[in-house]
């Protein structure tokens, strides 16, 4: 679990510092204050050594690009969207051994990106991020990080890859258990071929199993979040605009499931939101849990930089009780 985070020179952040993180971190703020960029920063810090190509993809997915487009865009579009000169730096204090404490991306004009990764006090790996995209050490440090984007649903192929990975590790019962918390009627989760494609199906007790996308937008969203969280065991789950597709009345149940699963599987969660109900639901779902379970962070634009305000649980409780704006 990362206990603090610093991002320098990335997207809209000149120097963002979040001194305290919890197991569940909900991030609010107005448009263009860097909520998605913060998720991307965590993605790069924790995951770039694990799988640079996947990280590159995750820097595009939240911006509305699909898998095919990411492959076509490659590293060049990313490089063009980032400034030359000053290095981009991500740093965090982490409790697990092996999680990167800092990642630095630097680039000479017109040249490739240099990637430096510091783990446990040592510069562990330094590879070129541009032309050598996809080339990385087999045993590179990092943690398993899965990002659930706000707008585009997981493709059926991505869902089946995640589910297949869990099948291989005999962990699909964890997905079922999490889904059952939200929808007790779910009796089984299976991957079934439709044409040439494997599609996640839910057994809701009817005569036939139903493809998850046909059960409803909300259930499909919940499936994505749960599947991603279970797959991110001992790692990090990132969810952009977690309330999307979900009615406010189920938000507390979703948060309770996310919180319980995070504790059970040692997952750290970063989620963004625009919704007041979502903040209330996250607070209510984690009330009574240990102090470091949940923190709400709001990003504010101050001049030409972004600052983070982190609410203590007691402060958030009073703010919500008294009707003070926290978003």
């Amino acid at each position, binding site marked *: 679990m990362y206990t603090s985070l610093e991002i320098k020179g990335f997207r809209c952040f000149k120097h963002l510092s979040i001194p305290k993180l919890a197991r569940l971190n909900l991030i609010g703020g*107005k448009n263009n204050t860097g909520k998605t960029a913060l998720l991307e920063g965590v993605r790069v810090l924790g995951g770039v050594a694990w799988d640079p190509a996947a990280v590159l993809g995750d820097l595009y997915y939240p911006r509305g690009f699909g898998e095919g487009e990411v492959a076509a865009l490659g590293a060049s579009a990313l490089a063009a969207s980032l400034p030359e000169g000053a290095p981009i730096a991500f740093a965090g204090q982490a409790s697990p051994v092996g999680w990167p404490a800092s990642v630095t991306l630097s680039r000479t004009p017109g040249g490739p990106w240099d990637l430096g990764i510091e783990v446990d006090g040592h510069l562990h790996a330094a590879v070129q991020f541009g032309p050598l995209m996809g080339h990385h050490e087999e045993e590179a440090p990092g943690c398993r990080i899965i990002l659930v984007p706000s707008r585009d649903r997981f493709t059926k192929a991505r869902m089946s890859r995640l589910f297949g990975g869990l099948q291989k590790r005999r962990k699909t019962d964890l997905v079922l258990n999490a889904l059952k918390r939200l929808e007790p009627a779910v009796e089984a989760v299976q991957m079934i071929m439709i044409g040439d494609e494997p599609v996640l199906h839910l057994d809701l007790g009817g005569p036939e199993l139903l493809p998850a996308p046909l059960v409803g937008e909300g259930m499909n969203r919940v499936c994505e979040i749960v599947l991603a969280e279970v797959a991110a065991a001992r790692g990090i789950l990132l969810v952009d605009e977690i309330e999307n597709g979900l009615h406010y009345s189920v938000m507390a149940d979703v948060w309770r499931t996310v919180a319980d699963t995070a504790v059970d599987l040692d997952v750290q969660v970063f989620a963004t939101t625009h919704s*007041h109900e979502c903040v209330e639901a996250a607070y209510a779902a984690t009330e009574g849990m240990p102090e470091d379970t949940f923190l709400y962070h*709001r990003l*504010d634009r*101050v001049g030409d930089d972004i600052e983070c*305000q982190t*609410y*203590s649980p*007691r*402060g958030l409780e*009073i*703010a919500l*009780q*008294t*009707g*003070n*704006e*926290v*978003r």
Partner: protein
Amino acid sequence: MSVSYRDTSRPIGNEAILVVEGDDEFHLLIRLLKREGLEGRIDIRPPYQGVAELGVYLPEVLAKTSGFRDVRRLGVLRDAEEGGIEDALRSVSAALTSVFRSAKLTHCGRFETVDIGPQQRVHVGAFISVPCLEGLCLAPARMGADPAMPCVEAYLECLAAHVTDSTQAQRLKRRLYAFLASRSDPRLRPGQAADANYIDLSDPCWQPLKDFLNELAGGESWRKDSTRC
């Protein structure tokens, strides 16, 4: 900026903000600000509940609310309760210190200048009602010898024989609510009662509080002294 009675969940929208304790005080102050023509010049924030909460409310809620960085004047309204003005000022100062590093208020209604880092200078002041704001609400009724007041006093006298552990502030609150219950519409709370003229906000007893609010809004004295604001 107009103040909505219901939609209290909003960022700070003014450089002068007012913090009050309790819902009744909040709604009464909304009416007083409107009456004084100050509703667009002071942003009254959703109220904290109870004196003990102020120490958390100021640093953990108010100072983190979007827009706090642009605040230049901050007024705090508090009841003295049993401790008197000096105790109340000390407690407000302690709560303010958690936001402003150092903020020692020594006089009720007087503003002091404090710094939050190099870029934000804020004038803070506290108005302490002795023992509570409800006392002001009742002053006109008592002075005007309202015909219901002897009944109210008789009720309180009877009650005193059975409820012996109440504070002066609690007795005043009881007196106010008993008085409001004697009106033709007996259901109204203080803010609504002011709308119905059951509480007379034009009475001179409100003047010190009005002066404080005008000072908070950026009244004449701020403009005269160029070193302020």
